[in-house]
């Protein structure tokens, strides 16, 4: 590269020739890139963009015989049905409730864990704790849900074994709305918080250690060091993670709800993803469930854009 630039400076009259040579070279270099990229582009078009086009059935009365294109248009009727039905409004409310609780209680935990791990002096202890707390992230919700059901089971669960000793009778943790929500949020934190701390730990490594030493010499206590050095040091990461989190606000994980849900608590536990699965796939009501899914995606898109532009105002935006 540098040799050619040198040549160009020496002989300006050959500049044009060089430029077209350069372009030819670039085209030649691009051929293998595009051969590689064609299957990728096809993948995104077929499995990502084609379904987006399929969203039009939210505005249609889809039936199998007429197909996506042939089914009659119904305008906003599906959405009207969604926002007027008591059941569907309740499902939307449940989705918001669970995900907002998830953020309020779940978002700070990885940050706290990362700060705590950062304050451990013995390397072997830090490494062991990290190894253990990352582990639940790799378990599927089938496993975690199975554990939760087993631990809180009314008949033979270990928790109720102790509850019975004090209270005389077992408590139906998974069948009361309040305790179900707590278990739902708690199990999400148990599964994800440890792994979520990795990002913050990575950010913490970039903080200059001499800041802590200086603060120590100036007589700052541990709390002051955390407040004035650690937290500002990972502020940007916190903001980015928060933006990403708000984008997922509507996506209360299907697997988790599906595993933990039961008929008794469906009043608080039925969310958009389980509704779409039950009504759409099992009940074959494609149009109305697509409308629900569309609403979910749209809210997610609006929220993530809004929180990003808000963050941009503080120069911390993601894009």
């Amino acid at each position: 590269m540098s040799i050619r630039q040198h040549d160009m400076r020496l002989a300006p009259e050959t500049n044009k020739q060089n430029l077209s040579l350069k372009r030819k070279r670039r085209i030649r270099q691009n051929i293998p890139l595009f051969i590689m990229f064609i299957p990728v582009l096809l993948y995104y078009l077929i499995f990502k963009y084609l379904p987006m086009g399929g969203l039009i059935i939210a505005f249609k009365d889809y039936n199998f015989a007429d197909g996506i294109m042939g089914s009659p248009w119904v305008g906003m009727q599906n959405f009207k049905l969604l926002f007027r039905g008591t059941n569907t409004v309740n499902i939307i409310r449940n989705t918001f409730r669970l995900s907002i609780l998830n953020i309020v209680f779940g978002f700070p935990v990885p940050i706290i864990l990362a700060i705590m791990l950062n304050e451990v002096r013995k390397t072997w202890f830090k490494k062991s704790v990290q190894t253990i707390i990352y582990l639940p992230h790799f378990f599927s919700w089938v496993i975690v849900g199975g554990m939760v059901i087993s631990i809180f089971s009314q008949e033979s669960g270990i928790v109720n074994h102790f509850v019975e000793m004090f209270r005389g009778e077992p408590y139906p943790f998974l069948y009361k709305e309040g305790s179900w929500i707590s278990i739902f949020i708690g199990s999400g934190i148990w599964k994800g918080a440890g792994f979520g701390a990795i990002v913050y730990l990575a950010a913490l490594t970039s903080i200059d250690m001499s800041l802590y030493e200086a603060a120590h010499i100036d007589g700052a206590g541990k709390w002051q060091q955390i407040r004035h050095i650690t937290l500002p040091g990972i502020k940007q990461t916190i903001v980015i993670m928060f933006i990403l989190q708000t984008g997922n606000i509507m996506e209360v994980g299907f697997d988790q709800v599906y595993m933990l849900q039961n008929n008794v608590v469906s009043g608080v536990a039925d969310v958009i993803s389980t509704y779409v699965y039950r009504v759409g796939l099992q009940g074959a009501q494609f149009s109305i469930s697509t409308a629900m899914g569309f609403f979910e995606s749209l809210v997610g898109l609006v929220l993530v854009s809004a929180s990003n532009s808000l963050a941009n105002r503080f120069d911390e935006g993601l894009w």
Partner: protein
Amino acid sequence: MKASRGERIFYRVNDILLFLVGLSCLFPILHILSLSVSGQKAIASGKVGIWPVDLNLESYSLLLKGTPVVNGFKNSVIITVVGVALSMIMTILAAYPLSKEYMYGRKLFTKIVVFTMLFGGGLIPSYLVIQSMGLVNSYNALWLPGLISTYNMLVMKTFFQNIPHELEEAARIDGCSEWRLIVQIYLPLSMPCIATLSLFYGVSYWNAFKNVLIYINDTKKYNLSVLIQQMIKSQTLLDPNYIQVEDIEQMTSEGVSSAGIMVMVIPMMIVYPFLQKYFVKGVMLGSVKG
């Protein structure tokens, strides 16, 4: 730096709290493990904590003989191995061109790809696409829609971008073709990243649940996740030809479903320590802004 008295107390309390956090992560796993090797009566009375009571392997033998768990295990392995291979190939095919500044339309293509992280068609339209392609009830319905995780692809792209340009230029001057450049320079240098992403893909294929539930109708093709979920929620999968009616009543399903959970957990626990050092690096790579 000598710690003051206040700081020593801080460190001590911090260590104790983290120790408790670690315990709380381990407890449920140990509890399920001991449930799976405990006697039925002890389980039913809720006496089993993290230590097995009345140690025996009856739950495992019931699981092996009375349920299609072996077949499910085989299916999970097939789904995972083929899925990881396909996903890694596609991820590299996507990440390499996008990492090259001289690629025409690079910015546009990156936008097309990133937009799918923010917005999607959702379950039903995706199902209709897969159905119209005739993929329902085949593993292609599990592999094809999830070929590329855009997040993983961006991690790979960032990694390629951080490989020093000098290497590439030197190789090109020596007359190295684009293909040889990828195979002999980029891929060997990217092994830590490839290992990490393979682990991530592997975990998601091994844990695949929703897609199997949606796209696979043939119970013989079920993977471990769906089999075990059905065992936990009901006992319909127990083979009535093998298990006597009185056995079903006498047997608490918990022992057997705990054994099922362990069958899913154990392979993960075996590979986990080997791959742990990679994924920590991998996540840190991801935190580099692409």
